[in-house]
């Protein structure tokens, strides 16, 4: 996984998605904006909220809580869209991840990652004593 790592850590944007906290590596984050309005697409997978306009370009927006299988959490007064790079580095593309709240920037110690997987969730770590799902958006979009 390509990391935005410092000394053995991955600098990440921490967001809340449903009842989960998820860490998106900072090197995969382009921008965080107030929740973008989306236009639905018929017959889309439930994770796909629809298309939004960002910077004059169409942007597919996915519901992060559904992507990671998070139970529904409390409604947030400040939902956000994380505009992020997804896919392998040479084929990366921008996507929007709808999240309930942007929390903070954290450093996830690489050594603390448990349950390493090759999928969207690359593992879990404890941050401030609470579990965090660490994402790797390079795998988003893979069949």
């Amino acid at each position: 996984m390509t990391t935005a790592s410092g000394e053995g850590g991955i600098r990440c944007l921490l967001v809340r998605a449903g009842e989960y906290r998820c860490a998106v590596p900072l090197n995969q984050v382009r921008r965080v904006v107030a929740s973008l309005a989306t236009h639905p697409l018929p017959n889309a997978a439930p994770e796909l909220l629809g298309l939004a306009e960002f910077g004059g370009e169409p942007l597919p927006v996915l519901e992060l809580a559904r992507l990671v299988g998070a139970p529904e959490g409390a409604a947030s007064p400040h939902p956000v869209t994380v505009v992020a790079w997804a896919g392998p580095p040479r084929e990366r593309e921008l996507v929007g991840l709808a999240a309930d709240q942007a929390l903070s920037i954290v450093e996830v110690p690489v050594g603390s990652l448990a349950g390493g997987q090759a999928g969207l969730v690359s593992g879990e770590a404890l941050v401030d004593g609470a579990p965090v799902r660490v994402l790797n958006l390079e795998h988003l979009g893979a069949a």
Partner: protein
Amino acid sequence: MSVEELLVFEHGGTSWGVARAEVRGFGAAGGGVAVTLRHGRVRADRVVGMLPAPVVARPGRVLRRFWPVHARGLAVVGGRVVVVIDPLAPPPGLAPEIEGGADA
């Protein structure tokens, strides 16, 4: 850079577009609009109009993964996101349910 012109229409809360050169006409049909293309018809709730689309981008891998519907591309036209259809293979959701409708 050549700017393509699209007929933009709405259906099911989504904005769709089809290349102007493919459009033969459109008219009222069953409370909506039937758009007649060179090779068939699609249905619309409302026609927005003919609008220039400077860039039509191919759908990316992520979109195709979560929306496995064939489309020619995506464009932002007049501030709205438009799905540009392949006139030879429009999405099933645009298939006309009601025959009829006069060409404009």
